[in-house]
């Protein structure tokens, strides 16, 4: 059910349909808008200038006048007696006082003139007719000529009749009445644009909301679910996004569970390996206090050394397992690494003292801020110091300082031991260094080893700042 809902949006819910609706309303409104605008403009005009309205003379439409004139001529063609025609013209003159009328009978004599016109010939020759027709309609006067016949455009033998009116009584193309009409049309247009603007602004706002929702993350680094709005295209996008967030959270949760399981396994393994080791070391300690031959003491000492090696090996193996599988969760933070170095050195100092090493620590007062995980960095240092203690104690020297290396401040750990190429009494340094390498890589640090028979120098510096 849900799936079909996803793929096939309901049309009435879609943005497209809503925009179509706005357009459709706009179009449907045109026939309403035009007369409404006209009425409103007339109304406003009337309200604003009522006195102007009264002074206005009666206005006529030229087309209406022409149609009326031809109609009357057609009517008169049925009863072409001069008395009827005279009566009709008088009637028309009464109705339209501003016009001037006359008619010419079949014998081309001028008959009734309303009012009397000076320049009309009494008898119409063909020339007279043509010259009159030329001037009947001009800029100042509108004239209509109709033959008194069934077809008023053709002569029917009963003569013709002429109507003239000064153009000032005719309605012009744009009458002053319509002056507000444009304004109202403009208002309607503005409303339409405003509606469109609001519509798109709303869409834009929701898209921006969606964007900010996608960039916001919670403490797990996952995006946060966002509030779902209307069930249109954007609403479904939000729904899809939330669905994705749920999936991500589920995946993250599963990953965390797996990680927990793995950690538990390693912890149990560590416990099971170390418990017997603890018992063994306890018994060695008890034996050491017994009166024994020097050979027995020597073999106890050897057992103790091997026990320590085994302990470190277990530690390394477990760490390596976590690290190599990428399960070692680091929380990298900008912090002063010199502080960590000092704490680590403080822990190792008694051991160095006991082995009579010359300790030379020259660290600046200013902090050296790198992005590291404190525990992992401690462990790197511990592994390095452990190696130093095991394989380079003969040099009787440990130096910790900062130097410029490749243009940046590097941490330098130096000893005067026999170097890395010297044969080592016991194996195991390899795994420890591999762990150091893996951790350094995760913290984006570089480790450079400069080893000779004179001693070893280990440089540590951030990898990212080289370029």
């Amino acid at each position, binding site marked *: 059910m849900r799936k079909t809902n996803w793929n096939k949006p309901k049309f009435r819910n879609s943005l497209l349909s809503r925009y179509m609706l706005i357009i459709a309303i706009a179009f449907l409104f045109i026939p309403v808008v035009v007369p409404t605008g006209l009425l409103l403009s007339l109304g406003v005009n009337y309200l604003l200038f009522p006195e102007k309205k009264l002074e206005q003379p009666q206005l006529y439409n030229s087309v209406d006048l022409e149609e009326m004139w031809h109609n009357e001529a057609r009517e008169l063609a049925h009863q072409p007696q001069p008395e009827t025609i005279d009566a009709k013209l008088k009637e028309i003159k009464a109705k339209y006082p501003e016009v001037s009328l006359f008619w010419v009978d079949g014998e081309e004599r001028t008959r009734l003139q309303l009012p009397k016109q000076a320049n009309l010939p009494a008898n119409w020759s063909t020339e007279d007719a043509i010259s009159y027709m030329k001037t009947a309609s001009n800029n100042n006067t509108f004239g209509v000529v109709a033959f008194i016949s069934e077809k008023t455009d053709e002569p029917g033998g009963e003569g013709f009749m002429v109507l003239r009116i000064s153009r000032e009584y005719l309605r012009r193309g744009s009458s002053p009445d319509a002056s507000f009409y444009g304004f109202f049309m403009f208002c309607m247009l503005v409303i339409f644009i405003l509606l469109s603007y609001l519509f798109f602004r709303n869409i834009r706002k929701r898209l921006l909301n969606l964007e900010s929702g996608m960039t916001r993350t919670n403490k797990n680094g996952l995006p946060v679910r966002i509030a779902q709005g209307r069930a249109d295209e954007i609403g479904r996008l939000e729904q899809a996004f939330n669905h994705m967030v749920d999936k991500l959270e589920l995946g993250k949760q599963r990953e965390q569970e797996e990680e927990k399981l793995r950690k538990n396994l390693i912890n149990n393994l560590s416990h099971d390996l170390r418990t017997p080791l603890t018992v063994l070391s306890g018994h060695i300690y008890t034996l050491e206090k017994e009166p024994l031959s020097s050979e027995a003491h020597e073999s106890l000492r050897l057992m103790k050394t091997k026990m320590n090696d085994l302990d470190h090996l277990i530690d390394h193996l477990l760490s390596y397992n976590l690290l190599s599988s990428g399960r070692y969760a680091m929380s990298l933070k900008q912090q002063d690494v010199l502080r960590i170095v000092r704490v680590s050195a403080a822990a190792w100092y008694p051991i160095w003292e006991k082995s009579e090493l010359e300790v030379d620590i020259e660290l600046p007062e200013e902090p050296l801020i790198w992005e590291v995980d404190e*525990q992992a960095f401690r462990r790197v240092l511990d592994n390095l110091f452990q190696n130093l203690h095991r394989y380079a104690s003969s040099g009787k020297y440990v130096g910790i300082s900062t130097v410029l290396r490749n243009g940046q401040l590097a941490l330098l750990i130096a000893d005067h031991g026999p170097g890395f190429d010297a044969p080592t009494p016991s194996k195991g340094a390899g795994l420890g260094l591999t762990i150091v390498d893996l951790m350094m890589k995760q913290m984006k640090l570089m480790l450079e080893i400069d080893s000779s028979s004179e001693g070893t120098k280990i440089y540590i510096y951030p990898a990212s700042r080289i370029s």
Partner: protein
Amino acid sequence: MTLSNANLLYIEDDPEIGAFIHSELKSRGYEVTWLTHGDSALEAANGCNLVILDVMLPGLDGFTVGQRLKKQYPHIPILMLSARASIDDKLQGLQFADDYLTKPFHPEELVARIEVLLRRSGAPSSTPLQIRHLLIHEKENIIMNQDTGEEILLTGKQFHIFQFLLQHLGQILTKEQIYEGVWGEPYLDGDKTLMVHIRHLREKIERDPASPEIIETIRGIGYRVRA
């Protein structure tokens, strides 16, 4: 100078390790109560000076037991023992425990840490502490100079710094650790306050402040007071 006759509660399920540590601690003069599970830890902890707690226990695990103990007896220090090495474990443990030791450990190290914790928790030690020419009555907050037979009077901050160093007897402390332990606020780089205080402190307690014997400077790291 062990703080002997202190009462220790030791919770460990492994019989072999338990028996060994139990007898080792007893031989050093501690009163030790050994439990093989944490169920009755709360009752047993009543009146003891320190708890040594194994993480992997049958029933209630060490973390749970430790948290309950700390809640009921906030002043009793807890030392966690664990054969689990992961850093998470260590961090989880140190949220309530005062120290954390991984197995296998050397009995000497265990005893050393017990001593530090007992001293830090201010366990009643009627025997005064002797450091070089100084005799320190911790209970009464009196520092006697045995060369002159006079009492050394310290200002509040000087006393707190010295007390903090004594609580971590034998340990090297960095400037940051001392500052944050005494002032209770983060150390600001380049702050000379601590160095000034230590100079004045040395002028009062050292035979020769120019070559101090009591408060050692560990160059590049920090300071240490050794017994």
